[in-house]
């Protein structure tokens, strides 16, 4: 054989081998991620998605920031600091589009749905693990849907002009392109029914003794959440029943006066927490977004407690300590323009820099929920029961027990304002009662928001979603 022929042959062989091997050659498996089949068909994968179910509650659009404080500024607890950083300027004047929002929550709901679909069948969980994971995740889904429906829809018994649209309901994970279909909004009642069903199933699956409270969903918290849902739904009997379950099963009690103050909010967990989101430094929302940046002089101090809120606190109320003067704790960093101001001391970056835990359900709320449900039901003797629950809070906050049984509902709502300020309740409380919102004087010449007239009571759906999905109806007026 001639040399050139050998070369030719070799070349042909080399090229052929190369060609055949090429499909393998360009096969690469990712290192950062795993395929869907690995994640959803293994207990370790589902466990990680279950963790994600908690993680997504902590984003700035939800319980990391906006669910906690946007409503207080949209209502009457918070005002803009004249020396603000340009943030939080729309909410005080209820500028269109500055509502609480949170439509992005569906990404997290998809994670929750993934767990709820696969947890019952995936190998590798013990029965108790399986129940706990499923039960917690169902409660988280209920929380997410309730947060959505209370922002985007009216409450079932407070429908305005027949506008009964809730939010889109998805209870199955999106695993194929076809499943990402265009849906319309379910009625608020349908959404509430889904929330109720999730929580009832969750309560069945959960026990209070698995030791994960309050950083994970638990049976008392699920009862408390269900009581909150029934309160919004104005199903007083059910609210009373589940608030009572929550109180009876609660591992925590209402803090005594000496324990109330910034230290209570700095504690991990908050001694009153039934359910609290646990942040670590790696989940910090960062200097621009953190609750502590908006509320404390350490960073922007964009939002101040309104004079009207401070005025509700009598001199002996231990909750006055939650609104210290800026120079008391931040003398070295405040400029002259921020001297002499009171600020909210519930989130002072106590976990880590720009990082605080967020209590989502506290036992005080549950007492006030039951108090309101008693007062609203109005059966014989309910007023005394309601007043007893109200005084659970008052007497633990340095106030005298209430003895006047008239206007109890207003008194309870006032107590909620004092107790739950900057914890995500004020705006929703006024809205679910159908009350008008009287804006603080410091907000400037802004009108009172009339329930039923002002469109701002409902947040607008993202425009992009509405124009993309023909079946999706925008809220009235937007």
């Amino acid at each position, binding site marked *: 054989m001639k040399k050139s022929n050998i070369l030719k042959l070799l070349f042909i062989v080399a090229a052929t081998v190369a060609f055949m091997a090429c499909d393998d050659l360009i096969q690469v498996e990712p290192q950062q991620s795993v395929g869907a089949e690995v994640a959803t068909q293994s207990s370790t994968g589902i466990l990680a998605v279950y963790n994600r179910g908690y993680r997504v509650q902590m984003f700035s659009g939800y319980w990391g920031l906006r669910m906690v404080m946007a409503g207080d500024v949209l209502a009457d607890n918070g005002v803009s600091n004249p020396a603000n950083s340009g943030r939080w300027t729309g909410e005080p004047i209820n500028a269109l589009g500055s509502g609480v929002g949170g439509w992005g929550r569906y990404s997290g709901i998809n*994670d929750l749905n993934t767990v709820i679909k696969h947890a019952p069948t995936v190998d590798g969980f013990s029965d108790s693990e399986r129940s706990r994971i499923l039960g917690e995740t169902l409660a988280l889904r209920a929380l997410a849907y309730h947060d959505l429906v209370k922002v985007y829809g009216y409450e079932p018994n407070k429908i305005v002009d027949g506008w009964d649209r809730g939010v889109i309901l998805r209870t199955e994970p999106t695993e194929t392109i076809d499943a990402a279909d265009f849906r319309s909004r379910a009625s608020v009642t349908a959404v509430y029914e889904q929330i109720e069903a999730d929580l009832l199933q969750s309560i069945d699956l959960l026990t209070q003794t698995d030791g994960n409270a309050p950083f994970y969903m638990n049976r008392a918290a699920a009862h408390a959440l269900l009581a909150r849902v029934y309160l919004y739904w104005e199903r007083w009997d059910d609210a009373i029943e589940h608030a009572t379950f929550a109180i009876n099963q609660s591992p925590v009690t209402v803090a005594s006066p000496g324990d109330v103050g910034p230290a209570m909010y700095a504690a991990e967990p908050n001694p009153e927490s039934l359910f609290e989101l646990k942040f670590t430094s790696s989940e910090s929302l960062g200097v621009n977004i953190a609750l502590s940046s908006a509320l404390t002089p350490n960073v922007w101090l964009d939002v101040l407690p309104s004079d009207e809120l401070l005025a509700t606190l009598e001199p002996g109320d231990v909750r006055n300590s939650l609104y210290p003067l800026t120079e008391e704790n931040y003398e070295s960093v405040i400029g002259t323009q921020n001297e002499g101001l009171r600020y909210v001391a519930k989130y002072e970056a106590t976990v880590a820099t720009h990082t605080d835990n967020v209590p989502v359900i506290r036992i005080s709320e549950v007492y006030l929920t039951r108090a309101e449900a008693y007062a609203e039901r109005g059966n014989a003797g309910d007023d005394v029961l309601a007043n007893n629950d109200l005084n659970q809070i008052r007497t633990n906050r340095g106030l005298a027990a209430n003895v006047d049984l008239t206007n109890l509902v207003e008194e309870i709502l006032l107590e909620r304002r004092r107790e739950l300020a900057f914890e995500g309740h004020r705006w929703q409380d006024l809205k679910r009662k159908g009350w008008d919102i009287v804006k603080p004087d410091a907000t400037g010449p802004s009108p009172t928001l009339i329930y039923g007239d002002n469109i701002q009571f409902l947040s607008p759906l993202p425009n992009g979603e509405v124009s993309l999905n023909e079946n999706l109806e925008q809220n009235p007026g937007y």
Partner: protein
Amino acid sequence: MKRILLSLSTFLFVLLVSAFSSVAVAQTGTLTGTVTDQSTGEELTGATVLITQLERGAATGIDGSYTIENIPVGDYNVRFSFVGFRTINQSVTISQGENVLDVEMSLDAAGLDEIVVSGYSAIPQRELTGSMTTVRGRNVQGLDIASPDQALQGRVSGARVTNLSGQPGGSTYVRVRGIGSINAGNAPLYIVDGVPISSVDQSSTLGSGNASNPLNAINPRDIQSIEVLKDAAASAIYGAQAANGVILITTRRGSAGNTQFNLTSSYGVAEELNRLEVIKGPEWVELQYEAFENYNSFFGANLNAAGFIGGWTLDDVQNGEVPHYNWQDAMMRTGTTQKYNLSASGGDDQTRFFISGGYNNTEGVAITTDMQRMNLRANIDHRANDKLSFDLNLATTVTEQNGALQEGFFLGSPFFMAQFIRPTNPIYNEDGTYATEEVFNYNPLAANELDDRNSTQKQLVGNAGAIYNITSNLNFRTNWGLDYRTVEDIDYRAPESPAGESLGGYRFDANRTVTNFTTNQVVNYYDTFSEVHSVRALGGFEYRQETRETFSASGQGFPSGLFRTLQNAAEPLSVTGFGSEYRQASFFSRVQYDYDDTYLTNVSVRYDGNSRFGEDKRWGLFYAGSLGWRASNMSFMDFSNDWLEDLKFRISYGITGNSAISNFASRQLFTSGGAYNNAPALTPSGLGNNLLTWEESGTINLGLDWAIFESRVYGAIDVYSRENSKLLLDRDLPSDSGFGSLTENAGRVQNQGIEIEIGAVVLDRAGFVWTSEVNMSWQRNELLELNEGADRLGNLFVGRPLTEYYMYEYAGVNPADGRPMFYDRNGNITYTPSTASERENDDRQFVGDTQPSSFGGWFNQLNYRGFQLDFLFQGSFGQASYNSFTGSFTDGAFFRRAGLIANSRNRWTEPGQITSVEKAYVNSSWPGRTGGFTTSTRFLENASYIRLKNVNFAYTLPVAVSQQIGVRSARFTLQATNLLTWTAYNGIDPEIVGTNNAIYPQARTLTAGIEIGF
């Protein structure tokens, strides 16, 4: 992979064995002579003399002489070539003993005979049928630039080149023939001596505008040539990576002859291009009072400005007690540049080498910013025998950059804060410590001086190859290349600095590596039949694998700024890691057939497979065909033979691809979703798409090359239309599905343009030579199609350019009351313009394009005796830039009680006043209406400019003089960069792409240097 390596190494072994089997013994002679410049009579140093049959040669020495020994007696063709001169082919008969051959070479500005690199092979420029532009190293080696891509600016038609940042060693924006992709990359493919360079931006610490430039590995001094491949005919051999154009960088090689050393040294200073005029302290206080007065009178309120602006009162202004502190002076400085290079090149018949080393130390015009770089290069060629030769190119670079603490609108950004900070705010306390900043408690000078933001890039680019000549017409080349880079980012905030104070000091370290391995095996064939049929063909296989790995860690809590390493951190914060990879395998071929140098045809094909794409669409075919017709060779053109050197028409069409997408874009994956309570979380990163594949680019190109008067005047015209299709676009999904979008192939974008290049030896008389090159490009861009049924994607609209601004039109200030006015969609005045998702309800309008409609350059070189003057004008026309930088210190700054610039003097103060600056006010907008600082055409400016980019004056000592002082040559240079700019743009530097976000502006530099050869 293993199988291939095995078979290839066997193959190589066989080649090696057969290569050493030939031995030659014969009678020999010597060829010697002198090469001179026809127009000046001067001896030419460094011209190449090559005996083509033997592929043996020599370079002329300092006196223009050359000697080639041991030539077997016989008839040979000898080729004399030298860059810038017409190549001479001469027949010679070598007899035993000495044979003398002297030649005179004449200028060849057009470079028709020069060899250009065109992808896996090199061919004479005259045979080209594709559209490409060559930048010769000799024109750019001496430029005061940091990386070779900057050399393209103003010198290549069709390539928009913009310096993105004045950070020493910052990166460059290069777009060849417009923008064809929305979501995949738009940067061209860079190939250095056959090794593709990963374009992955590396440093996160230094920010996007400053990201370490991968081309920092190439010392501009080492460049032989840069070829920019523009149309499909030129680039299709690179297949799925070629859609954005391909830039081939070839480095210098040694030539046989005495070893020549070159030492260059330069020193330069850099100054800011210009500054915004800041309102001084007393006037600033008055303006703040005016703003508060306006607020108070509107609300009937009684806010006292003094409480908001550090206590200054109007009385203080009256009494002259309000100080002014010049923060611009504090944050900026005069920069310096030092560069030293030493190279040696030479060799003999068998081995040639080029070795160079460079050191560059540049201090930027912003405090604490600098770059230090060391380059080493060794390019070695060795001819083992007639059949086999090897080559090795190896370049290593260490670049260390210190950046400003931040760029953009941030407290740590000197470019922003120099204006933003109150002019009444002291810089230092009386005791010399840093003064407190009154608004944010953040002294930017302290932050920049105490903190570090540092990136060190260590890079190795190299390749080893061998060529085996199977026959004299057929060779096989194997090439193994590596582009390996590590980037070490450090972000340190001292516990004493305002950025680190709240954390007790902070440090973030990131270590990133890119390993980019390439090998290709190419068979090249060349032959001419019957003297008129010329065939060139090549075929090959290429494999590329790019692995990226990153890991980073951070910690906080340092005892003091003296402790800087992570080990000293009291509290570890986070550790993260990242790894990703892609692989590509390709088969390619190109066949060129020319008839009589007159009819030229060329076909290239590439079959690419890439792991990035969907399982069902992993392999793709790319191709191009082109035809050329040299009309000047036709007999009917004989009338022009006296003056027409060349007239060639070209046409090409082809399909290339754009594979610059993320590595696993097609896969349905669950990816890290953070953690809850320290337990790791997973979340689906997207819905998979098995059909996802490359973007496709189809280009048709018509070209005309011409040269007249013995190539003293020459040029090219190209007209192209490029349509990019199958664009990677995100189809919106309803977000309630859990996913915002799905990436799919849809949509089309068109780029069209005309490019003209003209060059000439304008004057060549009595030793005075003036050469000049002009290029000009016109381009337009249109989005033709989006996802099915969509005519809009965000602010991109079908029928409009991709890079257009879409914003409100500003109507100035109402002369009656100082309110800012806008035009609504119907052209009526409004105070509250609104956006809407439907175009017809949206008040925003199409108001300008970030891409220029035309750009070009004009390069000149004047030589007289030893003097040489180079100057380059460069310009860009029709592009708009949103100048929010200037805007943020006009009225928008009032609401933060921040620094103001001279623009604020134009604010509305009294009824009837016509101005564009609204009434002073303490917030960004008055209740119930839109503020003037809202994004609108108010700050949108025409950023067209013409710039005297570079002037370089050099004097070379006469040979006689330099020899007297014992050196081969000596040259002195004086160079200025960004010397003069003509523009209407109000920002600091119009050389910008898009919005002016307080980036690090370029500087004006003046450099003196010396070059010594010995």
